């Protein structure tokens, strides 16, 4: 609440409020925000709760009296977040801004439905990168097989058909360039989308990848949003058996037939001037949520199991997590956790892990 008062110049358009908080709970906070003087445009409020609101009708009706019609259920997923944010701002009258962006880079949640069920061969020698990429792809509903080097990849592609290949360029035995040449020339798979994974935007690598016959590239360490966009671009949407809700969402969003909730409107011009900035914010928010929910959460869950069973695989797992948790607010706690593991005190490490998870609002 204090944050809102202070930042009146630099005001918020949207507030995410946790339902259960110590002191003042989410409902009371929202009531006060809505009643607050001196705020020209009242922010939209999205309630975050661990409960299914449809099972709590009295709380839900109390919330809607205050003017909260949207909620997110924990654990918050990327697509839920996106959908809810779209709903709230979409009510401003102009829904097109997010969908018409660059023609094809529209809804992330929508797009991932297009490649759900696709089969991808991941060619990567580093076990840590294998694990990270595999987790990202599996969360998108993609089926992943792994080859440890270029030669293995060529052998596998001789036998099995894939929708696309994600190819590391630098590998032992056979690198990605040579593997791509063999796949194109010897196996004759000229239309197979091969996407290079190149380290840190080295332009030379990219040119070499394209020269070798790859269609596109993503940078390492890989970023879920970037990977998704590239895959969507190259994998032809098949008539895969998407579930009913997927179809509903897609048609709903695209055909304007989705019933928009009746919430106080943001003025159109005011909204429009803020759109550019908002879109960047969406992207930032989205990629943070991707990082936490798609990558970090499964890693933490695995780590908890390893600590529980005393498995020394946790040492390796910590290295994977390191790149995600170092340089964040949680770094200190994470360092303590590592110290515990160095001393093999798995129970103490497990306690710290639970604290880190709850700070990230992840349930283990």
């Amino acid at each position, binding site marked *: 609440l204090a944050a809102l008062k202070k930042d009146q110049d630099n005001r918020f358009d949207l507030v995410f409020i946790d339902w259960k908080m110590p002191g003042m709970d989410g409902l009371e906070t929202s009531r006060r925000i809505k009643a607050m003087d001196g705020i020209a445009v009242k922010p939209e409020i999205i309630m975050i709760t661990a409960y299914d609101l449809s099972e709590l009708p009295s709380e839900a009706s109390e919330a809607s009296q205050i003017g909260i019609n949207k909620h997110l259920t924990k654990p918050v997923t990327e697509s839920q977040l996106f959908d809810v944010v779209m709903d709230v701002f979409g009510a401003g009258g102009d829904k097109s801004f997010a969908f018409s962006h660059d023609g094809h880079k529209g809804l992330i949640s929508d797009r991932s439905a297009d490649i759900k069920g696709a089969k991808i061969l991941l060619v990567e020698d580093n*076990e840590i990168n*294998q694990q990270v990429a595999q987790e990202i792809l599996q969360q998108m509903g993609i089926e992943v097989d792994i080859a440890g080097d270029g030669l293995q990849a060529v052998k596998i592609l001789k036998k099995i058909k894939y929708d696309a290949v994600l190819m590391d360029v630098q590998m032992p035995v056979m690198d990605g360039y040579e593997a791509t040449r063999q796949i194109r020339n010897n196996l004759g798979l000229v239309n197979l989308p091969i996407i290079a994974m190149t380290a840190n935007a080295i332009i030379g690598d990219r040119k070499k990848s394209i020269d070798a016959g790859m269609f596109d590239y993503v940078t390492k360490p890989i970023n879920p949003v970037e990977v998704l966009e590239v895959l969507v671009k190259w994998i032809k949407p098949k008539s895969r058996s998407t579930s009913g809700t997927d179809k509903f969402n897609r048609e709903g969003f695209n055909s304007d037939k989705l019933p928009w909730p009746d919430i106080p409107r943001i003025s159109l011009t005011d909204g429009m001037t803020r759109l550019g900035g908002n879109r960047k914010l969406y992207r930032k928010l989205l990629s943070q949520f991707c990082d936490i929910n798609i990558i970090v959460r499964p890693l933490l869950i695995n780590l908890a199991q390893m600590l529980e069973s*005393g498995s020394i695989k946790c040492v390796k797992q910590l290295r994977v997590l390191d790149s995600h948790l170092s340089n964040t607010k949680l770094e200190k706690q994470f360092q303590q956790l590592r110290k515990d593991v160095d001393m093999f005190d*798995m129970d103490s490490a497990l306690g710290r892990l639970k604290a880190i998870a709850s700070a990230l609002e992840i349930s283990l």
Partner: protein
Amino acid sequence: MTSFAEQQKVLIVDDTPENIHILMGILEDQYDLSVAINGEKALKIAAMESSMDLILLDIMMPEMDGYEVCAKLKANRKTATIPVIFVTALTADETEAKGLELGAVDYITKPFNPALVRARVKNHLEMKNYRDKLEEMVREKTNELMITRDVAIELWVR
């Protein structure tokens, strides 16, 4: 992804991280290792669903010592068949006898001799493999016998 699933599982129980590090260095290439720094955690891990194939158990530990852990392992049906190798700096025959009485299969003494550690661990894991296979065979044969008996009884009743 890799062949972790095929590796046999060894639990190292020791209150000193240095010892754990040394044993890890000797064994981690070949086995799926877990560690516990006290008896309580060791008993918890040993009783978990995916059980251990072998336990390396330090004798001198604060609170619950290795003898007590071993006795408790042997008293629990779930963990009684896991072979235990004691790890000790004590070399007196007397302590060795005490451990063997409790059901331990062998001893490893500190400071560690890597070749010896590897050989003893390998031997006992192989023996456990044979025993598991034998038990499986006995179970199968018993089943067959039961079926034969049931059929025989049925025929006789008719």
